[in-house]
């Protein structure tokens, strides 16, 4: 919408380093968790699952940055894609419980027996296969994003209108998933998981491996996102963000451009959600809450919009802050978060990454194009 703070592809230098750092930290923590308990370097199960959660959130932030930072779409509903990915993985994990549930039914999850359902609904078919679940993790968010985006971008819904309807989308999904009849466990969601691919989810080794996998997939997503935004397509994306009409008169179709990045972003978010569920052990309709989506936007804003690295950094830092804050001063976390929103937009529009750039280089090199409210193409 406004080219105020962001300069597309030139701020991508740190991305590769960030990907490496993510893998190293995740690997290090995973190894530390396998040390004997007495060791000074031992990482507790709590720390490992916390780290896994942060990295999964970082993937959500990355996906938000792709559309907000590079395509100018302020999404207030990306947690929907995250949660859908989580539910897709949760379905598989539910089926892995098998006959070990409270009711001991090998094919039906407990909550379905509780609703006295006789058989699995069709959309649960195949969910016992990990490969199918892994496909659904990206396919379902991608499909929803495809349909939603195709409708929205084709009819040129943009700006605040688009933000509001993304929020309505996740809100509607939240209400739907709260319904018992939908077949996803209603209020309680999916939980009490036991195994993944036959490995005990509570075993330290499994958790360590999951953390490493999360780190590697986050790094891979970072590199994939970098590939997208550094390509000629990425330049076009920034062009569409700043002057959509101009690209149209050059013969491009902005709706296709936005749709492509929107779907890709939804898939990354879905992947993040799936990793989140394996490590946090529960997915419920609360994940669809509009507040979650908006919070993920502030992670990106804090880290620095349109930089990819900033999204990862912001997600980790804000969530770390949240963990510490809620442990010490639970009353004050919402104040903290509120002031973070206001402070970042007012005083740190380029986020931490912008701050770092300023420190490294004299600000004279920073080019601040004139702020224009109107897009190109106005005659």
């Amino acid at each position, binding site marked *: *919408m*406004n080219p*105020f703070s962001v300069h597309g592809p030139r701020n991508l230098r740190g991305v590769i380093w960030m990907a490496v750092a993510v893998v190293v930290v995740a690997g290090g923590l995973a190894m530390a968790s396998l040390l004997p308990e007495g060791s000074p370097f031992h990482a507790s199960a709590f720390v490992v699952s916390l780290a896994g959660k942060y990295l999964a959130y970082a993937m959500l932030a990355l996906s938000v940055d792709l559309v907000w930072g590079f395509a100018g779409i*302020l999404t*207030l509903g990306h947690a929907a894609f995250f949660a859908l990915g989580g539910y897709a993985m949760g379905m598989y994990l539910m089926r892995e419980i098998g006959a070990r549930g409270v009711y001991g039914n090998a094919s039906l999850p407990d909550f379905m027996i509780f609703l006295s359902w006789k058989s699995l609904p069709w959309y649960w078919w195949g969910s016992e296969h990990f490969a199918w679940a892994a496909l659904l993790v990206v396919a379902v968010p991608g499909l929803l994003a495809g349909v*939603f985006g195709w*409708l*929205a971008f*084709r*009819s*040129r*819904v*943009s*700006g*605040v*209108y688009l*933000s*509001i*309807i993304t*929020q*309505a*989308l996740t*809100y*509607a999904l939240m*209400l*739907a998933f*709260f*319904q018992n009849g939908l077949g996803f466990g209603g209020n309680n969601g999916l939980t009490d998981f036991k195994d993944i691919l036959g490995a005990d989810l509570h075993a330290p080794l499994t958790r360590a491996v999951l953390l490493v996998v999360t780190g590697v997939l986050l790094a891979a997503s970072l590199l994939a996102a970098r590939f997208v935004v550094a390509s000629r397509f990425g330049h076009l994306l920034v062009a569409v963000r700043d002057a959509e*009409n101009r690209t149209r008169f050059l013969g491009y179709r902005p709706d296709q451009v936005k749709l492509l990045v929107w779907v890709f972003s939804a898939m990354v978010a879905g992947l993040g959600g799936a990793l989140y569920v394996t490590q946090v052990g529960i997915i419920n309709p609360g994940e669809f809450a*509009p507040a979650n989506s*908006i919070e993920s*936007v*502030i992670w990106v*804003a804090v880290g620095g919009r349109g930089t990819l690295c900033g999204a990862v950094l912001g997600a980790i830092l804000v969530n770390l802050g949240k963990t510490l804050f809620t442990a010490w001063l639970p*009353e*004050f976390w*919402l*104040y903290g*978060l*509120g*002031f*973070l*929103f*206001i402070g*970042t*937009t*007012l005083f740190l*529009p380029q986020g931490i990454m912008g701050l770092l750039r300023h420190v490294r280089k004299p600000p004279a090199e920073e080019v601040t194009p004139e*702020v224009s*409210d*109107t*897009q190109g*193409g*106005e005659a």
Partner: protein
Amino acid sequence: MRSACLVVALWLGAVLLPGACAYADAFSGLGSARPDEMLGAISTLAVSGDPQAGTVLRALGERHLFAAPDGGLYIRQGETCVDARTGQPVATVPDGLKPVRLNNRIRTALAGAQASMALLAPQAETRLKAADALYARHDPAMVPTLEHALSVEKDAAVRTRLMQARAATILAQPAQQDTQDQRLEAVRSLAAVGGLEARGILAGVAQSDAEAPQVRHAAQAAVSSMDWHLRAWSVAQNAFYGLSYGSVLLLAATGLAITFGVMGVINMAHGEMMMIGAYVTWMVQQAIRVSVPALEPVAILVAIPVAFVVCGGMGVLIERGLIRFLYGRPLETLLATWGLSLILQQAVRSIFGPTNIAVQTPAWLSGSVAVGGMDITLNRLAILVFAALVLGGLMLVLRRTPLGLQMRAVTQNRRMAALMGIRTPRVDALAFGLGAGLAGLAGVAVSQIDNVSPNLGQSYIIDSFMVVVFGGVGNLWGTLAAAMALGMGGKVLEPAIGAVSAKIAILVLVILYIQRHPRGMFPVRGRGVES
């Protein structure tokens, strides 16, 4: 000394010996242990005309009637005791009092006796009530009583009700050969009454094989006609609910629409302004209760201007302190106001606690009136009227005041307005204040129908957004139409698919609608409005 002893012994004997009954009147049987005697006594009493009969029977029903071994009957009234026959208090409570026990048969007989007594009571109101009770009971045993009452009743309203009660009672009995005409008449009489009770009886008749075909057909026709009426009324009822919810949405959304229209920003803290409006209502009520209790019933009216001023003032402060620094960056404004909403929520939670507070609904806003088959709750009706007044007032402000003119000018073309000498920053601040003040008014209204807690704003904000984007920007008629469409739409779908599904359906429909009409129902058109 011996003779004195003898006298005492004799006296004791007289008191203690069973069967040595000192009384033999209509009341006597009540103390009996045999149900038949009790039943007899009840029916005798009912027609005795004894002034104490009603009191005694009521006491019997409430288990306050006690029998003494000598046949005396007493009614306990708290700590004291009165003689059942005379109604006079007794100084000393006799020994050996036992409560008179009831079984179901006696209870039924008692209710019948009371009803038939009430049917003959001097006050028409009492008789009407008794007829109502019999209408609902349709006890076959009461037919003679009803006939008797009808023969002496003069009051037209009571007569009608008695005839309906008789009709219901007759139809509730199994059909017999020679009662056809009587039953047909009863069907007609009940059909005229309407209501679920009558429908139930008639539906039973319509399905009964024992019934004469003529009677059955009449009953069937009556049921289907009643069903049609019931459906029509339930549509009307839902329409009222829809209008009522629509007017709440309208109140919540107009402020949002104004700030969005004039400044192009979405105020995510709008819901919190509503919440604060509701808390202001509560505080005004508390203050008035303490200082001028006589004014308590109108505290809500006092709260209206106070909430408007408080929230409007906060709105101006927010615009001056936050929004103006983000001018031209609508998406950042959205984030900053979201942050503000978190702070406001937490602040209210810290000050007033996280739980619901009890905002009073004054007596003149409580309850409901029945209009035909419709139930109009007064508080919802009041909100409807209030929303109409607010909208009308707002129209006047926008059309007839300099501020309104300036706001419309800025909405249509900010740059041109600035060139004409309009101080746009001042207009922005006042527009934002006006929007927040309207949210405060919405808060006052919502406090009358919804729980007031720090989360109040969150439950309205998404619906209000939907109204604004659905209606289109800068057009209050659009906001009105959108609010009513969403309110009515939800309530129309609700009976068919349930409340939550209706809400989801409405959200999805609006999302789809926006995709087809990206600028809402009433878009501003022309060359100058490209985003």
